[in-house]
């Protein structure tokens, strides 16, 4: 996949690029409005990660160009401004998702895969990983064609794991993904362990042993 990261904070831009390149994606970067607009005129991207407040212009104008040029890139807005208006305006102009800084790169990655999955790119509603396949429409998971019964959280967890396969996910990242702001109510993340363990058991029972422990307290979804 080909990504464009339009973000004027070089450190953040590089960190995002570094994280996303690991899956073998091509990441191009743009550090200001002009660079970003030049690039989208010339090239086609699968995903554009767009900061709304670019130094020399607004990310919203980039969206307008994309719309005018009928570019089919999926756009995820990243903004320091948690304003509903910005969000609505961005989504109105054709952005696919909106994230408020700061965010976890794993979260960004799972949003990207969700955008890529959606029908807009002729994608299918199916996530596949070896013998595991997930129908995102009916929210059902199959192992070797056999459906396994998952709770809502276990399902979300599995999708999150597969989207970030091969990466270390700490309990904090997982908790934030599953419960958002409510996760700060938790004393400890012990009961995430319960959810993960249940999921692991259900998968292992069907022979899919992909959930591995990393560094003692983190998790990694990886093939043997």
């Amino acid at each position, binding site marked *: 996949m080909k990504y464009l990261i339009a973000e004027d*904070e070089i*450190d*953040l831009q590089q*960190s*995002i690029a*570094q*994280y996303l390149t*690991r899956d073998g994606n091509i990441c191009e970067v743009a550090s200001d409005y002009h660079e970003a607009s030049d690039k989208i005129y010339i090239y086609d991207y699968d995903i554009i990660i767009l900061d709304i407040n670019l130094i020399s212009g607004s990310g919203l104008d980039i969206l307008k160009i994309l719309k005018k040029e009928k570019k089919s890139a999926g756009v995820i807005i*990243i903004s*320091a*401004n*948690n304003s*509903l208006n910005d969000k609505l305006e961005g989504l109105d102009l054709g952005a696919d998702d909106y994230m*408020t*800084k*700061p*965010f*976890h*790169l*794993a979260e960004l990655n799972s949003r990207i895969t969700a955008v890529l999955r959606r029908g807009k790119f002729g994608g299918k509603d199916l996530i596949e990983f070896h013998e595991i396949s997930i129908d995102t429409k009916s929210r059902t998971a199959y192992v070797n064609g056999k459906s396994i019964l998952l709770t809502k*959280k276990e399902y979300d967890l599995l999708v999150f794991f597969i989207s970030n396969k091969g*990466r*270390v996910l*700490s*309990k*904090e*990242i997982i908790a*934030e993904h599953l*419960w958002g*702001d*409510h*996760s*700060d*109510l*938790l*004393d400890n993340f012990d*009961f995430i362990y319960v959810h993960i363990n249940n999921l692991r058991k259900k998968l292992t029972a069907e022979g899919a042993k992909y959930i591995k422990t*990393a*560094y*003692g*307290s*983190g998790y990694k979804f990886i093939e043997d």
Partner: protein
Amino acid sequence: MRKKTKLISKTSKNFLLTGLILTIFSSIVLYFYTKNLLQEEIEEELYSTEARVSDALENHKIVYSLPPVSEIKKVKKLRPEILKDTLIYDPSQDEMELFRELSTYKKIHDDYYHITIRTLVVESGSILLAIVISNISLFVLAFIFLFYFNTARNLKIWQPFFDNLEAMKKFSLTSKEALLLTDSDVLEFSDLKDQIEFLTSKVKVDYENLKQFTENISHEIQTPLAIIQAKIDNIINEHAINDLQFEQITSIQKDLQRLKQLNKKITTLTKIDNNQYVRMETISLTELIDEKIEDYKELDLHNIAHISNDELFIKMDPFLADILINNLVSNAIKHSSKNSSISILTEKQFLKVSNSGESSLIHPEKLHLRFYREDTNNRSTGLGLAIVRKICDLYGFKMSYHFEGHRHIFNIDFKNSN
């Protein structure tokens, strides 16, 4: 504290009191002065009559006695002159009358005479009374007139002061309305008005700056937070680190999460201050609470019981309604021990959230203050209830806290809200 009196009634009271004292004092002075004057006149008259009588006797004229006004008697020897008051029966009026009496002894042509001259005092007494009464009435009339005149004038002079005082009472930092003050031709009042205008505009500007600053800070802080977050996410994936380092890094992540929450709450507070939540929708808080309880159930934290006697409908911004319920319930969760129950009660215009606790808060009046905490529970940002309070203030809800039966109880009364 001393009793407060209104300015106008205070000055009026002083004025009337002075008037009363002046009237009494002047009447007393006038009474004695006039009385003295009259007495002198009477005595002068007595002496002059006596002189006429003795003159007539010297000239061998026959002088008749005319009791009680004058009596002339021959006596054997001379006695000292006496001037006194005496009561004499007046048959014509059938009563005792007060007379001033001068009795002298004179030797005229080798005869000794006792001459007694009297004059009626009653008459002068009435004159005295008339004078004093007219004095009092004059004074009273003058004071009443002056009182009304002064009060009316004072009211007019002080009016700009009172108007400005009212305007200041209504002054609010958060209000967009400008402070409208009345000018006056009284120099001091005009000065006062200028000073008030100067101070309030300075306070307003400072407040706006502070608000802007808070807004900017919380906005600016997000980018570095995002960078730290992204770098941490990369570190745990890219580098060969050991378990201990991983523990430490995820612990940093926890603190980062706290910082994020803090920042988010500050942003919410500033946005409420800036009146950025303007949507008005009728929301069923009862329903919202039920949804929230479902969310919390997944976290498997506490036993939350919700009793609804009547569905609670409130007109407010849906985002703020969500925050209101969220903060109240999460406050209850954070400050009660695990496995203890949290109960929520909704009525037509009333919401009650309670959780178990050891003892009452030490300073419940400080609950609405930002960053006020009574324990060092680091899960708490100290902003949740400040936000609840702010939302209540925004819509005119009344929030109260009390401790009863080992439970912290938070009530919100939605009556009289707009």
